[in-house]
């Protein structure tokens, strides 16, 4: 815990120093000093610190009933275009959401992109997975109104499975004359879920006390996304799909000791995952309207789904407000069980005191406990409503 807090303080101190020294502008470093003709390298970064407080359950972090600061994200990226039509970029990232992340630095993405023309390009390396409106930027607080995205679709704890993969992507934009244009992405690669990540946490939560998730494989994943940019300014409609093959989990299940059971026993299982997501976005003047629906098939296993509708309005340069309503069902066959659903009405206020500084305040009125994912920390769950407060500040350059 001491190491974790030291890392936290160090990251915040570095961020503050960068902001103070650089006036929070992006950095552009020319390489002429080392005798090259390469173009300059762009550096950008961000750091976010949040507070989570809830009325009845510990949600996202272990101790939100008393208020938790275990809600942090930071990233630094570099990019350049060294050759014609070629873009190179990489981002380092660390985060902490309760027990997930733990400030461990990870290579978030590192890719080379070659763009043949507007219609077709290819990208390889560790790439962000294009899915829906927010998956590529699930942890970039400054690129949205709310603190928490609708968690049934964009779970802050699941980024190790959803956010990126090691592989390749083909993309482009096809003009459709007066019908607008069609943007497409197709990708294939290996996801890299961690035993200590969000997926591992969910699996462990369903096991008897004393059990462990020993390893998770890197499932091969195939997917794609289409966006129809309609001829109506600001309106786009999207559909995404992916299939993860043979996602394997190796566990040690702590069964009750004899005479009731054999004690800890190794166990393994494998599943395929299918997922679809449909999206609608309309940007009109200072309004943003968004709605998405996602459905996931675990084979073998449940079918879960989630949806949300979101409205946000930018009043002026420094103030924006938004609200969304979202529902999540962990089993579409059991929509009436409060243990299996979570319904959330959120109201968000975003302040931009400076171009490089964002402050957010958000309230949640929640029914159901389907996304708590930590039964040991929430032994008594009922169908009553509960509340959550989220506060967050982000610095960027």
């Amino acid at each position: 815990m001491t190491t974790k807090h030291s890392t936290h303080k160090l990251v915040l101190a570095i961020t503050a120093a960068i902001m103070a020294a650089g006036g929070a502008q992006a950095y552009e470093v020319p390489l002429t000093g080392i005798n090259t003709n390469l173009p300059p390298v762009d550096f950008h970064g961000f750091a976010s610190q949040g507070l989570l407080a809830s009325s009845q359950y510990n949600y996202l972090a272990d101790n939100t009933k008393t208020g938790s600061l275990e809600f942090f994200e930071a990233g630094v990226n570099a990019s350049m275009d060294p050759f014609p039509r070629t873009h190179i970029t990489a981002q380092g990232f660390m985060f902490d959401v309760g027990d997930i992340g733990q400030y461990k630095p990870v290579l978030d993405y590192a890719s080379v992109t070659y763009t043949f023309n507007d219609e077709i390009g290819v990208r390889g390396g560790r790439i962000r997975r294009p899915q829906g409106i927010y998956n590529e930027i699930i942890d970039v607080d400054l690129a949205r109104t709310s603190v928490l995205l609708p968690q049934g679709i964009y779970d802050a704890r699941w980024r190790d499975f959803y956010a990126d993969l090691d592989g390749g992507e083909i993309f482009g934009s096809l003009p459709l004359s007066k019908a607008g244009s069609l943007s497409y992405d197709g990708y294939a690669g290996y996801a890299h879920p961690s035993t200590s990540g969000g997926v591992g946490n969910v699996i462990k939560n369903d096991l008897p006390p004393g059990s462990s998730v020993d390893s998770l494989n890197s499932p091969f994943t195939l997917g794609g996304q289409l966006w129809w940019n309609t001829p109506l300014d600001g309106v786009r409609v999207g559909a995404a799909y992916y299939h993860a093959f043979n996602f394997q989990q190796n566990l040690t299940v702590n069964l009750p000791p004899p005479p009731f059971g054999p004690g800890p026993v190794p166990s393994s299982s494998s599943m395929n995952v299918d997922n679809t997501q449909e999206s609608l976005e309309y940007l009109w003047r200072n309004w943003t309207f968004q709605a998405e629906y996602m459905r996931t098939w675990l084979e073998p296993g449940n079918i879960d789904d989630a949806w949300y509708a979101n409205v946000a309005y930018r009043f002026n340069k420094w103030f924006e407000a938004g609200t969304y309503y979202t529902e999540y069902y962990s089993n579409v066959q059991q929509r009436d069980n409060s243990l299996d659903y979570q319904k959330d009405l959120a109201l968000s206020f975003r302040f931009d005191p400076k171009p490089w500084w964002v402050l957010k305040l958000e309230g949640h009125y929640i029914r159901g406990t389907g996304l708590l994912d930590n039964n040991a920390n929430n032994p008594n769950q009922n169908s009553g409503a509960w509340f959550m407060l989220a506060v967050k500040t982000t610095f960027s350059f």
Partner: protein
Amino acid sequence: MKSFSLKLGLFLAVLVASSFRALALDGAVVIANSNVAADSLSADALKDIYTAKTKYWDGGQAIIIAVVPDKTDAALQQASGMEASQFKTFWQRLAFSGRGSEPKKADDAAALVAYVAATKGAIAIVPADAALTGVKKIEIK
């Protein structure tokens, strides 16, 4: 019901028609670095640049967008179809997902023109009364 369908149809027709209007930038002009081959762009081509559909000039030089915040917001909206805050968020999404680079920011029009003059592949929307030294003016058709 028939009346409602008629009104809905008219509404959609007006929306579609409005999306094909000719582009006129309010109090602003488009400039580019002198190494950019193009002397003119269609409104659609300009929008493709400002919405990241087109990221390279013919020949492969990366397009570098430069902006001067608050000075040309109306023209930027006309070029991109996005309000200033939406435009900023749009490019932040690309920059932090590894899919593009954020537009460069200048403090004022003179600094913006100087940046475009010195940077290969750069393009910018500047106030119409700015002194255009060392850059080429791009006609928007």
